[in-house]
């Protein structure tokens, strides 16, 4: 059976639905207020603090085959400089000749300074073994730039290229549900269920989007770094599995980080 579709009639009727969307918005104002109240109540005492403390210990601890600390690690502002490093990542590193985000850079330092096997760590599932330590380290390093404003360097050709690749990844549609990052994050003021969706094609504001991760997820009681955040975004997009520290995840971070220029970092944040 194959009948013609009466598009015109259907389109005419869509107008009515839009009018009603306005009413719906007004009715759920109180729900949004309720959620805001809930989030405020959780602000004091973010369990991310537990991971910050662990990360700081790990930074100063002699570990790995070389029994060394990470205190000589160059996160972009010189060996051992932690404060302010997070809000300038991802950036280009001459020694690895790559644009790296915080976590892939930490893994490089763990490899060169402590003698860990970088490929092995990258292949370790989130939440296990050394990946847990990378997350804790990233949480602490991010926390050391709390209150600072994002200002990713774009001077190097590779940094500008990373931005351009990241932008294309952001808009890449695929999978059985046709989702891209842009499906949910390219318009102001939208939400999924009751969760606000930051518009990541521009600076979404202080402490929003890129400026809120790593974050403690209350829904599962886990600390999530940006790599895991993006990994789960791709899972929800119904795409296959992105490699840890791959060009796709790092360039996406460059795209979001550059767009967030001037946004104040509140990381480590607290999320649903």
């Amino acid at each position, binding site marked *: 059976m194959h009948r013609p*579709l009466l*598009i015109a009639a*259907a389109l005419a009727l869509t107008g009515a639905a839009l009018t009603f969307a306005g009413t719906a918005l007004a009715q759920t104002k109180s729900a949004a207020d309720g959620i805001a109240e809930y989030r405020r109540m959780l602000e004091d005492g973010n369990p991310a603090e537990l991971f910050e403390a662990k990360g700081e210990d790990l930074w100063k601890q002699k570990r790995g085959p070389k029994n060394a600390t990470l205190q000589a690690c160059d996160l972009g502002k010189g060996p051992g400089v932690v404060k302010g490093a997070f809000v300038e990542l991802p950036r280009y590193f001459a020694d690895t000749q790559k644009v790296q985000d915080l976590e892939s850079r930490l893994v490089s330092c763990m490899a060169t300074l402590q003698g860990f096997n970088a490929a092995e760590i990258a292949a370790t599932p989130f939440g296990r073994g050394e990946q847990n330590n990378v997350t804790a380290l990233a949480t602490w390093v991010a926390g050391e730039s709390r209150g600072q404003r994002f200002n990713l360097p774009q001077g190097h050709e590779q940094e500008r290229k990373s931005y351009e690749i990241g932008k294309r*990844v952001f808009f890449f549609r695929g999978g059985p549900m046709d989702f891209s990052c842009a499906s949910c994050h390219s318009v102001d003021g939208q939400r999924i269920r009751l969760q606000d969706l930051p518009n990541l094609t521009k600076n979404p504001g202080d402490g929003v989007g890129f400026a809120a991760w790593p974050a403690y997820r209350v829904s599962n009681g886990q600390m999530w770094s940006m790599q895991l955040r993006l990994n789960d975004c791709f899972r929800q997009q119904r795409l296959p599995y992105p490699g840890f520290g791959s060009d796709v995840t790092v360039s996406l971070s460059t795209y979001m980080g550059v767009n967030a220029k001037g946004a104040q970092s509140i990381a480590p944040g607290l999320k649903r």
Partner: protein
Amino acid sequence: MKNSTPLIASLLLAAGCAALPSSQDLDREALVAIKAAFRDEGIAKINRIQQDLGQAACSSDKQPTDAVADQVMAQARAGVKWPTGGQYFGDWREGEKLAQNGRGMTWTDSSTAPAANGGSCYNCHQISKQEISFGTIGPSLYNYGKNRGVGDVMAPTAQPIVEYTWAKIYNSKAYSACSNMPRFGHAGVLDEKQMAHLMSLLLDPKSPVNQ
């Protein structure tokens, strides 16, 4: 950097002044990066990054040209499969459950069969008034049938909206080339029965949507 690189070029590189590849080259490089970065995990196989015409056309911050958009919509309309035996409707209660259910098709799900999937409708739409946790990416569907004057869903006057709604659920791109909504029938996310339940949720006068 290779030794053979002329000094002037290396100076430019060091200063970060080298020109970026062209936009088309960057498009190609992005696809190469995507192919290299993703791997199979569970039911989420690498072939999911292979784009069809519509996915590729709607993968930038610019809308496709009218000609391409028309082609995407025409293909989508031509591919809509109408329900077997004209069974457009099911049970709105089952439809509500599907609308609430946002699961399925991720690498942590064990099967791609429609039975394992939800419709994820509340993620993006207001639907019944009782559910306050709804998204706003799509328009409100509250009173969807009522606003369109649907009383008896079997009445001939209801036929156009019944068909429009079925086709929209089956392949949202039939009406909008870059619609954010999944193509539930086309992509095999939901089966005919499940789509019929969603039809009832939206159009049945007894459904909470139309109260």
